[in-house]
């Protein structure tokens, strides 16, 4: 049933632009999709290894800036006499470079900060994001600082000499984001359902026991950080070549918070959670804009969020799947004599596995 649901979703998203002609709505879907990819990447760290990265936007921004710079080219005056000139590269190369550099910074953060856990990890990630933001703001020679990098080329699809399509319109960008989102989803899904994912969950649940059973604690945390950062970098690359302008504001803390909200309300540690959360909190503000003033919008947004966290502390997806299992008894795990909470947790796992 869940497999069917997944395919129905994919089919729905694939055909959506055919009957949804509102370009503005398509734009909202694209930006929501980009944020959903970032939320999925955060979920790998937060939901599966249990480490809260509050600097996640740093990887998003690093991906965005790297991709922009590689596609635009840049020169750096290293000494008075020598200037390093980097010629513009094709956008796809830039996109991959953004992913790689973001992944490398994930590795760095993982290596440095996985000696420390919990609150200390949170602080290290926040500081990292702030440092990167200040670099982007002040290294004007490279990043143009607050003047922003402009005229970033869009993605292009070409058969050399025969046919070329630059992604100036929303439609190709929509499908590109959808494709990257599917790849990201499959990546997380395969990892999570493997021995690697189980090792990550084991670290979240009981680190000493995991270590004594032979799970290399640091290795899997660093691996999660790399994959997560690379995925966030991909989202950043998509963003930069779609919006075609990038300034240091991409590093703002509010974006990290948005990602965390998406993951938590959707259901951390479930595969579908960040998607549900990403779509709701990507689309909701735009829908509200139609009939509410900005102040009222934010109030509704906040109230909605508090209600979700208050009534569905594990998130929307676990709650829905618990309800579904209650109703139709699809799960083999009876839940046993436990209280309501472990039952819900069981449902979380089941939901995570099945979707």
């Amino acid at each position: 049933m869940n497999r069917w649901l997944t395919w129905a979703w994919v089919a729905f998203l694939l055909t959506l632009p055919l009957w949804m002609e509102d370009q503005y709505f398509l734009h909202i879907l694209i930006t929501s999709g980009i944020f959903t990819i970032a939320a999925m990447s955060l979920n790998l760290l937060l939901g599966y290894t249990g480490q809260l990265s509050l600097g996640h936007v740093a990887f998003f921004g690093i991906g965005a800036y790297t991709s922009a710079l590689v596609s635009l080219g840049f020169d750096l005056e290293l000494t008075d006499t020598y200037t390093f000139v980097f010629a513009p590269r094709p956008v796809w190369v830039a996109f991959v470079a953004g992913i790689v550099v973001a992944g490398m910074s994930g590795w760095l953060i993982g290596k440095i900060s996985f000696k420390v856990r919990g609150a200390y990890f949170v602080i290290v990630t926040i500081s990292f994001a702030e440092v990167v933001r200040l670099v982007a703001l002040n290294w004007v020679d490279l990043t143009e600082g607050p003047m922003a990098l402009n005229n970033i080329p869009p993605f292009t699809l070409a058969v050399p000499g025969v046919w070329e399509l630059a992604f100036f319109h929303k439609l190709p960008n929509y499908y590109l984001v959808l494709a990257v989102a599917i790849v990201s989803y499959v990546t997380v899904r395969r990892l999570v359902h493997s021995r690697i994912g189980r090792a990550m969950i084991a670290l979240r649940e009981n680190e000493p026991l995991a270590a004594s059973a032979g799970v290399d604690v640091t290795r899997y945390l660093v691996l999660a950080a790399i994959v997560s950062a690379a995925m966030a970098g991909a989202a950043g690359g998509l963003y930069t070549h779609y919006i075609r302008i990038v300034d240091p504001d991409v590093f703002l803390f509010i974006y990290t918070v948005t990602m965390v909200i998406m993951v938590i309300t959707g259901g951390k540690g479930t595969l579908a959670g960040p998607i549900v959360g990403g779509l709701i909190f990507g689309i909701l503000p735009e829908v509200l804009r139609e009939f509410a003033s900005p102040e009222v919008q934010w109030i509704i947004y906040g109230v909605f969020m508090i209600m979700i966290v208050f009534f569905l502390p594990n998130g929307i997806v676990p709650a829905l799947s618990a309800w579904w299992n209650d109703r139709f008894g699809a799960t083999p795990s009876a839940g046993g004599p436990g209280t309501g909470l472990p039952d819900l947790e069981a449902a979380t796992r089941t939901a995570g596995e099945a979707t």
Partner: protein
Amino acid sequence: MSAGNGTAETVLAVDDLAVHFGGLAALNNVSFDVREGEVASLIGPNGAGKTTAFNVITGFQPPTTGTIRYKGQSLNGLRPNQIAEFGVVRTFQKTSVFASNSVFDNILIGLHRQGASKTWEILLSLPRVRKEELWLREKAAEILDFVGLSARANELGGALPYGEQRLLEVAIALAADPSLLLLDEPVSGMNPAETASFMDMVGKIRARGITILLVEHDMRMVMEVSDRVVVLNQGQIIAEGTPDEIQQDAEVIRAYLGHGARRA
């Protein structure tokens, strides 16, 4: 079943071990061996340093001085997961399972060391990855069957009754494919019937060729299952020998029953 006679080879050699917490010597001058295929027990009153010894052997606590060798390989300075790679796996005194995962998943996590799929193979979902996954699941079912928890496979680890959580703990350790299994008070909190069946299981584990080092307060169990007993008191070894010898040892009796009027 290999008997723990004097001719069996030494696998674990603890030599001149000391652990100091500030001015307190949790262990001092502790040396003992564990031989291939035997059940050795570490006993002693509360605070004697038994769990500290376990923590040092399995890499959770660095020793102040002394060496630990397993099959000739020094374990000093290795992390717990590296020590597990040599086949030295422990359970914990305070019950420790993956509480919010199903019993079956608990075992699958324990089987981590037996899987070999690389990250890129998993990302590409190669056929051999899927084959390995099926193999691991079979293996997990087998281990659950071995400890008698098959009926509980889909329940949450944390929802099991206490005695069964202790069994699950042993099952997780067994999944990690140990050659030396360290059990830290495995029957504490079990009722007599559970203890009796656990003792049977110790025999079955041993029959698989796994050497066992046991810390336990239940003397009936210790005396029945052990080939050799090492007695710790206040961080030092005060006696070592067969269960019969230990039960006759005047020093041991003093440590357990107190010094009586003589000291006063």
